[in-house]
Structures are given as structure tokens and as C-alpha cells.
């Protein structure tokens, strides 16, 4: 396949998916090697992100996805109101941060750090799909272990947990 049509194929795949698509998935769908796909993807990103265009290819939650450029969102909001979740409370954000950096973690361990009960907050975060139960701790009572989800990475716009800001060291 031509280089030109290769990038066009990837563009079509990513556009149609409407969600972050991993390189592996793209390679499989396009019947290409991962290395070739990655190469074509770099080209596609250059074409789209450096061109004078209204859309943007972003690396989010382990995949690539098309977005409208941020500067146009006020105009888009005149066209239709995108479904926005209300902002999280400080308590919820603190809990989310603890889970993001310390996962897998139990409820009791979170409560130890925050000094307050977090059961209600955990329910909220779970309802929002930001965290999920990822197993049970091998400890008395086999408490639930929590971890963050793909939705979390999407909602903070990060590609992976490694992209979270560094945890400052505690002397």
C-alpha cells in the first residue's frame, strides 16, 4: 500500500472508532506490522496536528483519538451542548489521586492517608467510572483493591499512568 493511502487508512480507522484506538488494534485492522503502523501514525499525526486544521490527533488512554481543537470548543458548544459531568469535590479528587498513585489500594489504606471515611466518595468515583475494583487483597477480610480505569485516563487526558505528575519525595 502507498504511504499516502496508509495514513489515510489509519485516519479513517481512528475517525470511525470514536474512542482511543491502540496501535496494536490499528495494526490488526489495517493488516500491518506494529512497527509499520507506528511509522505511519507518526506521519499522520504530523499531517494533521501541524496542518491548519480544526481537528487534532491526541494520544489518550493508550490510544489515539480525534478531537476538535480546544480553541473551537466555545463555538461547538453553541452548536450542541456536550454532556459534561459536574466537577468532582476536593474530597473525591484527593481520593482519586491517592488511588491513582498508590493502586492497588484498599479503602482502609486510603482512609489512613486522608483521615476520614471515604466509602461515599468511592461510590461516586465508581459511578463515574473513574475507579474500579481490581481484585482482593490477600489480607484478613480480603478487602477490595481499587484502581483507576481507562475512563480516568481519558478524563485527565493522559496516555498512561506514567504521565501523571511525579510524586514529590517526602524527605
Amino acid at each position, binding site marked *: 500500500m502507498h504511504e499516502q493511502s496508509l495514513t489515510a487508512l489509519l485516519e479513517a480507522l481512528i475517525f470511525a472508532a470514536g474512542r482511543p484506538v491502540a496501535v496494536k488494534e490499528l495494526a490488526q485492522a489495517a493488516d500491518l506490522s506494529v512497527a509499520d503502523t507506528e511509522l505511519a501514525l507518526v506521519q499522520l499525526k504530523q499531517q494533521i496536528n501541524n496542518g491548519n486544521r480544526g481537528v487534532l490527533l491526541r494520544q489518550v488512554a493508550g490510544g489515539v483519538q480525534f478531537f476538535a481543537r480546544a480553541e473551537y470548543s466555545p463555538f461547538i458548544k453553541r452548536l450542541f451542548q456536550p454532556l459534561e459531568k459536574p*466537577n468532582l469535590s*476536593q474530597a473525591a479528587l484527593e481520593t482519586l489521586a491517592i488511588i491513582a498513585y498508590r493502586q492497588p489500594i484498599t479503602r482502609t489504606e486510603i482512609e489512613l492517608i486522608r483521615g476520614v*471515611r471515604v466509602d461515599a466518595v468511592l461510590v461516586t468515583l465508581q459511578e463515574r467510572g473513574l475507579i474500579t475494583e481490581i481484585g482482593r487483597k490477600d489480607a484478613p477480610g480480603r478487602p477490595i483493591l481499587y484502581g483507576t480505569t481507562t475512563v480516568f485516563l481519558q478524563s485527565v487526558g493522559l496516555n498512561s499512568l506514567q504521565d501523571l505528575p511525579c510524586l514529590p519525595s517526602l524527605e
Partner: protein
Amino acid sequence: MAYQVRLDNFSGPFDLLCHLIENAELDICAISLTQVVDQYVSYVTLAEDYTDLDAVGEFLVLATRLLLIKTQVLLPITYSSEPDQGESDDIDDTEELVQHLRQYRVFRDLGRQIGKFMEQEKTYIPVGCVPVEGDEQVEVMNPPHIKLYDIVSAWTRLAPLFNQPQTVTIFPDRPTVEEEISALKIRLKNQPSLSFNHYLGKNPTRLRLVTVLLAVLELWRQDNIRVWQVVHFGDIFVASKEVGTCTNNP
């Protein structure tokens, strides 16, 4: 402090403590802790009208820990048999709290940063983004326009419901067996004999029936009256003994 303190503005006791230390432009260290103990305690006691112990419980736990630390600072000499060990325990306790507070602050700040990321991410609208529709529009509705007058008039309509006089069931005085006995005696003075059913009247209550029957039995036991029946399960006739014979007497 001019502004009103509300504990629920803080996400937890450590949040409040961090806020106090930062407000005083202090570092998180043992000395800072002792400087803000009084402030912390006064904040928590300001909220003492909280009826929900769950809401203040965790704040109170930290308040006691802080007070303990302050006492230990004010009374540095420990009178335990092993003074050295006692002292190091105190230091551990304070150091532990300081360490804890530092750790907490890290996550509090990271939480804020995550919040900022989320805010930022909202400006990127992805392909296939779900628009608000139908019922979900309800979420962004403004609160209904309610004036103070509306609330007051609603209350005046509802208020009587809350002070309704309690209904009280009043029972007529129930004569006791003793009272029935004396009533029967008076009756029998004027009347040679009487029918039990007639005496009770129409539809007597079960209670009156039992009381009168007990009165009759008691008078009979005391040998003051004569009691007889014309037929089995028939009416009971009662006559005073002093009055003498009765025609119905078999």
C-alpha cells in the same frame, strides 16, 4: 477570624490542619503543629452545634491528638520510670503526625492537579462525544425562583400541622367492685328482689358485667343476699336477706 468557619468546607481534619498551617505561612513541622493547636481546637468547637457526630468525629480525633502533643510540649519532663523512652515516644508521636500531614498534603495537591487536568480536558471535544439530550437537560436547570415570601407562606400553611393537639381518649369512670356492692345494697333496700340482667341494663360493657357479677358474688359470700336462678343459664335473681321471703324463691 472574620469569616465563618464551616467544617464541611474542608475535606477532612488534615485538610483543615494544613489550611491553618499554610494560612499562618508556616512549614509543616512539629513547631507549626503546636502553634496552630488552639486555632484548630477552636475551629472544631465552633462547629459544636453539629448534631451529626459522624461529621465531626474525625475532626475531634485529630483535636485530641493535637492537644496531647501540646501537653507534651508544655510538660516536657516525663515522670515515668524510664524517662528517656517516654520522651522518645512523644517525639515519635509528633513526628508521625508531621509525616502523615506531609504525605496528606502531597495527595491533596495532586488531587487539585488532577482536577485541573480534568478541567483542561473538557475543552477538547472528542469525535463521537455525547450531546446533552432529553432528561439530562434537567441537570443544568436553574433552581426554581423561590422568594422568601413563598417559603413563609408555605410554612404558615403547614405550621398548624405540626402543633395539632394530641387526641386523648377519655374513658368514663369505672365503678369498682366496692362501689357496685354499695350500689346494690341501696338498690336492694328499696326493692325486695331484682333481676341481674335488668340491673345491668341494655348492652352493658364487659367490664361492668364482670364488676357487678363480682359484687353479687361478694355479697353472697358475705351472706347478705340470696341468689337464685329460675332456669339453667337463665337470669339471676338477687334479693336482700333482711327483706325476708320472695315469691320467686323456689
